[in-house]
């Protein structure tokens, strides 16, 4: 019955089409996402208590890895859906939603949730690919919710680059299926569990070729450099709640697809470290490219977008560093998603208050609006790896994993990139927080939900930074155990 998880958002999306006013559409979106989050949470808990769930003859399956990502997805969507209510209420008059565009937003929002759920619950690599492609198509119109010349440009780039990129991933899926040789009639050739079971007998040459295509394809969607060209445009032009789900989960969903294929590649290549080296290379490349652009950035949302390139690079680097690195990469996934969602939330509201995303004009945010100014400052601090936030911890474990693996060059390059980002972003963060507040800035009031949205992610990041609960460690170890593919 797992397919119901993907159908539920569609049903609630249809329901929100019936709502007469903008307020009701957004309120029903938030409440239906809350209900769906509850159901998903139940599935996630069941998986961690009792082991993987398989349904519909092996088409759908949720194990520790997908359950972990399912949980992150629901956190991001839940926060973003509630944030959307307050964000759209505070839009300037010329950008205000009308009931029609609000319904379109809600329908696509639910559609994106459904497609991402499909990616996570499918045991079939073909269906997984169909889900990834569907997220591209469903989220495209969310970027240009407000139609303008630059939002159309961003949407077109996103649509073409991601469609073509993800098409390469399908070549990868086909090549992986081909590596199994001539299967017996009726064998489920694209099923993850089937291929995983056969992994030792797969043709390593074809598996390697397939992984290159998968890395390019899903890497495009995950914003890995040098395939990231669409990312800063789309993230900066989309309305803030949409940027938040893009950065907070859609990129991670694409990496999740790579994590699914990784154990098969590792086993088929006899743990030779071939795939690890590729991951380390692209990870470091992303970190360094992002650092260059962060140093010369003046647009707040583009700054956050390049932070996404950097952090997805860090996760990729971790994935290439053996079991400990994979553990840290998964930990980093949650930390980055929480932090980046808050970052885009704050950037969105601060952008509305200052009527600009130019960081040279945004000064004195802490006096203009302590809540969102503080949220922005806190999230940037956490993003650049200031202790004791959890991102500092996960980066530390990745460094330890690199040291254990004696990858000293990787450590040096990682520290170089992270150091540049630290200096570049901290300068902006301090100016924005404490600079001279312009006279004409009028702040808006914040309600209880706004406060929860800002304080909850920061609190979780602080707690996880100083103390990792035993239960959470077990969750991470279970999920990491799937990605390692039994690597010693």
């Amino acid at each position: 019955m797992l397919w119901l998880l993907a159908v539920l958002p569609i049903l609630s999306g249809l329901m929100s089409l019936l709502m007469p006013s903008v307020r009701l559409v957004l309120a029903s979106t938030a409440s239906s996402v809350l209900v769906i989050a509850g159901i998903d949470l139940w599935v996630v808990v069941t998986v961690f208590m009792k082991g993987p769930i398989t349904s519909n003859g092996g088409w759908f399956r949720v194990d520790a890895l997908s359950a972990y990502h399912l949980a992150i997805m629901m956190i991001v969507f839940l926060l973003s859906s509630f944030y959307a209510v307050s964000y759209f209420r505070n839009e300037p008059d010329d950008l205000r939603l009308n009931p029609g565009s609000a319904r379109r937003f809600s329908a696509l929002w639910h559609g994106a949730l459904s497609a991402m759920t499909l990616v996570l619950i499918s045991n079939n690599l073909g269906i997984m690919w169909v889900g990834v492609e569907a997220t591209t198509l469903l989220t495209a119109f969310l970027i240009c919710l407000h139609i303008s010349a630059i939002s159309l440009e961003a949407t077109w780039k996103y649509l073409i680059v991601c469609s073509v990129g993800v098409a390469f991933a399908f070549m990868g899926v086909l090549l992986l299926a081909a590596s199994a040789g001539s299967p017996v009639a009726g064998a489920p050739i694209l099923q993850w569990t089937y291929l995983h079971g056969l992994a030792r007998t797969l043709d390593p040459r074809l598996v390697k070729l397939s992984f290159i295509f998968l890395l390019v394809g899903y890497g495009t969607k995950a914003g890995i450099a040098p395939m990231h060209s669409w990312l800063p445009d789309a993230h900066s032009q989309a309305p803030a709640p949409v940027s938040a789900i893009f950065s907070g989960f859609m990129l991670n969903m694409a990496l999740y697809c790579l994590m699914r294929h990784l154990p098969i590649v590792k086993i088929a290549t006899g743990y030779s470290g071939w795939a690890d080296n590729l991951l380390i290379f692209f990870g470091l490349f992303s970190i360094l490219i992002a650092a260059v652009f962060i140093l010369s950035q003046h647009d707040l949302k583009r700054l956050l977008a390049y932070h996404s390139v950097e952090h997805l690079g860090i996760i990729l680097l971790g994935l290439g560093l053996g079991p400990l690195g994979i553990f840290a990469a998964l930990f980093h996934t949650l930390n980055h998603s929480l932090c980046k969602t808050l970052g885009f939330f704050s950037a969105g509201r601060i952008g509305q208050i200052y009527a600009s995303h130019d960081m040279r004009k945004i000064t004195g945010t802490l006096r203009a609006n302590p809540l969102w100014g503080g949220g922005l400052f806190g999230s940037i601090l956490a993003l650049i790896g200031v202790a004791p936030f959890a991102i500092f911890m996960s980066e530390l474990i990745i460094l330890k994993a690199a040291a254990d693996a004696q990858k000293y060059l990787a450590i040096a390059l990682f520290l170089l990139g992270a150091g540049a980002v630290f200096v570049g972003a901290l300068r902006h963060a301090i100016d924005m927080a404490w600079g001279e507040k312009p006279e004409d800035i009028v702040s808006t009031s914040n309600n209880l939900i706004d406060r929860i949205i800002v304080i909850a992610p920061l609190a979780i990041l602080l707690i996880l930074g100083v103390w990792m609960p035993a239960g959470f460690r077990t969750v991470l170890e279970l999920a990491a155990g799937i990605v390692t593919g039994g690597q010693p």
Partner: protein
Amino acid sequence: MHGMTENIMAVLLLINLALTASSRLAGCIGLVAMQGVVIGLLPLFSQEGFTPRGFFLAGFVIVLKGVIFPRLLTNTIRDASVRREVEPFVGYGASLMIGTALTVVSFWLGTRLPLPSYPAGMSLVLPGAIGTILIGLFLIVSRRKAVTQVLGYLVMENGIAAFGLAAVSKIPLLIELGILLDAFVAIFVMTIMIYHISREFDHIDADQLNTLKG
């Protein structure tokens, strides 16, 4: 039966070359539609054979790629009132040369790729598929008009469909339908985008969408 697949792949490769050399958008749409129909027929003469599933899929693909996509695209160029690809980044003579070179490369790649389930007597399917994918990519990067980029994407899709036939013995029906649904939504979304772009900018030159930088 296998003789037929070779003929089909030959037609596919010829359509590729014709695409690189034609400037009339309506002509390009027609060529891509023809390619879609040919791709739809291919499984009937290879893996599927004349089975109910084979006919169902072939009919589905032909209606989608041969009728619906061309109509959507024709409406788009009419609304945006563009007829020709003026001044592509790579001229038509050079494009034809590059197209031929890409085809040669794909024949070389086709012999190098060790596909186990690749049936004997289908020697043109793999190089044809790779060639079509490469030509599709070439059209996307070398042409200015947004419509031609969509056509390039469709050509690439066709190539991947042929590649799937060579690589995997049988893709489950549900996945085939999922892929076609995605392709349909993709073309639908892209044509709506082109409509908005032509209204906002008074042109559909994708290379002039270059405000966002850094």
